[in-house]
């Protein structure tokens, strides 16, 4: 029992100290009916580190990894190169095994890092402030809708058809219980998002407009008009960014008038990890800050006047407000926020812009290679690192066939919208600075073969 420091001698001596003759005496409050006298049946006994490692390595080997071959998946999770120093730092015990910084005198490391993270996120998003992170992009998105409801005291939210369908799905689930009304739609395979239709739906009961940027098909829509239209009706514009690297190349939602910007931060520092843990980003304007969910690190001074940081505005939170809290959330995604922040610090503005430029350039090359294949049609006029193509037939089986060849070709819209026949031929393809010309050639070649 390599993790249990008590020896049998310790146990005996300690039982004596507490006045118990056996350990069972300490479990007397458990009703007889629930007492287990031996170990739970059908479960294995303890195992050596060697055995556990071997077992898990075998499971791991049964997965085709993004590094094993050409890789073009996106749709809310992106593969970028994470410098080795990021993982080195987050493994320091002082970060990895620290608690939530409720005792600021001995948690300045975490607190200062969060303060830096908040500033980075706010600047990237073009918002005045940002919080210390959320679970992930999809939950951050829903929390933004709820927040807009609190701010506007309205319960009707309009979700753009370009919003990630999983995000829509999460919002739908929650709205069922909160009684919010959601207006949703399915995207059309057109070159530009349908901004005008969205604007038409805004009415006096609308709390917010939720728009993904770039959207699920990779399209980049100007949000300025949306912001104006929303504000004209005293509704908020919520922008959702699933690929923060894009903001190294295109305007920030804040610049275009978004009131709340949320996003998924996984692209930087965190890695794919089969979907989690990820890190939700959340920024908004200063005047909305007291309605913001989640933890916040703030600057202050200590008893000697030295600058320091604390968790602040916690009167919004559940441990103080209980049922009146802004959210039931009690955790941020601290270690992922740290990874995000370190990666961003390493990149700096120059590095982020270069990374974005390369990702975009590789996506352009990929698009060119694919549209050279007869029957393959590019949907987007504009895109960042991700675009949609229309195949001559259903995309799902094509993706599976390519996976069998070791090529992870993209995300079929059939996977994301199983009920929508009109989208079945759509394939969303993403590239990054890690994409190579060989990857692109292999993808184009493979696709050609499968379609033939």
């Amino acid at each position, binding site marked *: 029992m390599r993790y249990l*420091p008590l020896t049998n001698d310790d146990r005996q001596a300690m039982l004596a100290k507490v006045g118990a003759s056996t350990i069972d005496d300490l479990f007397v409050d458990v009703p007889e009916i629930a007492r287990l006298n031996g170990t739970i049946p059908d479960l294995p006994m303890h195992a050596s580190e060697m*055995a556990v490692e071997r077992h898990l390595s075998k499971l791991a080997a049964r997965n085709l990894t993004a590094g094993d071959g050409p890789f073009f998946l996106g749709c809310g999770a992106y593969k970028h190169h994470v410098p080795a120093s990021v993982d080195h730092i987050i493994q320091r015990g002082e970060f990895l*095994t620290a608690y939530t910084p409720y005792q600021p005198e001995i948690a300045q490391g975490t607190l200062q890092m969060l*303060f830096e993270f908040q500033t980075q996120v706010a600047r990237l998003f073009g918002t005045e402030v*940002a919080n210390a992170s959320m679970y992930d992009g999809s939950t951050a998105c829903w929390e933004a809708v709820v927040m807009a409801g609190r701010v506007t005291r309205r319960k009707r939210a309009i979700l753009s058809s370009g919003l990630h369908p999983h995000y829509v799905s999460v919002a739908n689930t929650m709205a069922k219980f909160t009684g919010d009304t959601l207006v949703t739609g399915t995207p059309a395979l057109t070159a530009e998002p349908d901004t005008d239709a969205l604007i038409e739906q805004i009415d006096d009961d609308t709390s917010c407009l939720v728009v993904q940027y770039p959207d699920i098909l990779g399209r*980049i829509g100007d949000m300025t008009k949306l912001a104006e239209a929303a504000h004209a009706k005293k509704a908020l514009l919520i922008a959702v960014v699933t690929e923060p690297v894009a903001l190294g190349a295109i305007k920030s939602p804040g610049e275009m008038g978004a009131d709340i910007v949320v996003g998924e931060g996984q692209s930087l520092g965190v890695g*794919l990890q089969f979907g989690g*843990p990820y890190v939700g980003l959340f920024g908004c304007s200063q005047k909305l800050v007291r309605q913001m969910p989640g933890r916040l690190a703030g600057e202050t001074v200590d008893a000697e006047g*030295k600058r320091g940081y604390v968790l602040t505005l916690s009167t919004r939170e559940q441990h103080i407000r209980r049922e*009146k809290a802004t959210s039931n959330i009690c955790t941020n995604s601290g270690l992922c926020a740290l990874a995000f922040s370190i990666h961003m610090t390493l990149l700096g503005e120059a590095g982020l812009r270069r990374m974005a430029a390369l990702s975009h350039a590789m996506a352009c090359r990929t698009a060119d290679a694919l549209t050279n294949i007869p029957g393959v049609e590019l949907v987007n006029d504009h895109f960042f690192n991700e675009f949609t193509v229309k195949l001559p037939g259903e995309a799902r089986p094509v993706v599976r066939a390519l996976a069998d060849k070791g090529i992870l070709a993209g995300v079929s819209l059939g996977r994301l919208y199983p009920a929508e026949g009109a989208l079945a031929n759509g394939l969303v393809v993403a590239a990054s600075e890690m994409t190579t010309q060989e990857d692109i050639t292999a993808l184009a070649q493979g696709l050609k073969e499968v379609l033939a």
Partner: protein
Amino acid sequence: LEESLIFEIGSNDVTGVDFPEGDVVGSRLGDLSRTSPIGLPGLTEPETVRHYTRLSRQNYAIDLGLFPLGSCTMKHNPRLNERVARLPGFADIHPLQPVDSVQGALGLIHELADWLVKLTGMNSVAMSPKAGAHGELCGILAIRAALEARGDARQVVLVPESAHGTNPATAAFAGYKVEAIPATKEGRVDLEKIRERLGPDVASVMITNPNTCGLFERDMKAISDAVHEAGAFVYCDGANFNAIVGRVRPGDLGVDAMHINLHKTFSTPHGGGGPGSGPVVFSEALTPFAPLPFVEKRDDGFHLVEEETADEHHAHSFGRMVAFHGQMGMFTRALSYIMSHGADGLRQVAEDAVLNANYILRSLDDVLHAPFGKGPCMHEALFGDAGIAEGLSTLDIAKALIDEGFHPMTMYFPLVVHGAMLIEPTETESRADLDQFIGAVRSVVERAKAGDERLKGAPYYAPRRRLDETQAARKPVLVWNEPEPAAAAE
């Protein structure tokens, strides 16, 4: 040396990441190219490593010493877990890959799910909730979905006074009215009061067991029976499952839904505030209402049940809670921990956690008031501030512990005890470390009883003295701003 902010030492044209050089041609960004500066300073790798290494040293952590935070369960995080979570086969796969290409990952989720179901004696488990509070929400939503499915629109959830704040917050978020259940003077929920209150308007009773006073709810089975009889469901806050894992199965006590904080019971790292992971186990009655997606084992391999296939297999699911499949990285760590301990080791975990807590209770109850300290406690020992000198408080004791080299205990929680101090050592502390901690607490408490005013200034030897939280909240400074020229010139 004080550590500056990256905004004070970095600059926008410095980078610690090299990229392939050469011109980048063509742009299909449309007319939305970013032109204005973003304001993201960069540091080279040497500066970055040094900045964060220095910052880290201002933190306390489990790797440095005992973390006696009652109800937070700070235990050792095995390094094997970190190693296996980084296997490319788990860390470098995309959530939307074809399921044939991720059979190992789905297999791992299924294997962990199987452990959780068997350890709790329940019927099924939802793996996707991202943290404990998210798991609570998942449980309450399943209860609501089950009630709605039978056309039963109940509006009230009963929550004990001693509950974690997330319980009422969750119930309120899910649209319920929250009513408090009073505690007995023994520190447990009052069975009779629950029986009295139960009725056709009560959807659920949320119980924490072991509770936040560190006590096992003796009447749990009777409560469950009463709740079920009234047509409601029992939600159990499983934050303290670590105290009973391997010795008690919540399923045997009539629980309908319970979340499990993987970091508390199964040692995933706390990481300075997350990421967490809060799978929820369900009784048979709630199983049909569990959320999507989930993993199912069929003859031809593991399948992922998502929206598309839900109709067929899981028509009553209340829906999706997160974009993808949950906290895979935490699943890997938790399974590694669970396999390492096995059924026998996990039982020992509970026993040692409880033994350590009782050892602390009995080693300190002569100097500190233990309001519910007659019988044994479970995994944590609860004390009050009775006997502390006028003008000094629990807070002063806590801050003084920092100077003794320890993290403070949980303070002022649960709310049912005045000046509460809740101490949870966990099973991964040695007897020697406990003795050292007990000695430190005794010495501080004795000073507090003697009215040592110096305690009010503690900590003296930490990276910072007490911080002004009022100022922080009154005029929040949440992001760094370039100092104004005037200020800079001062």
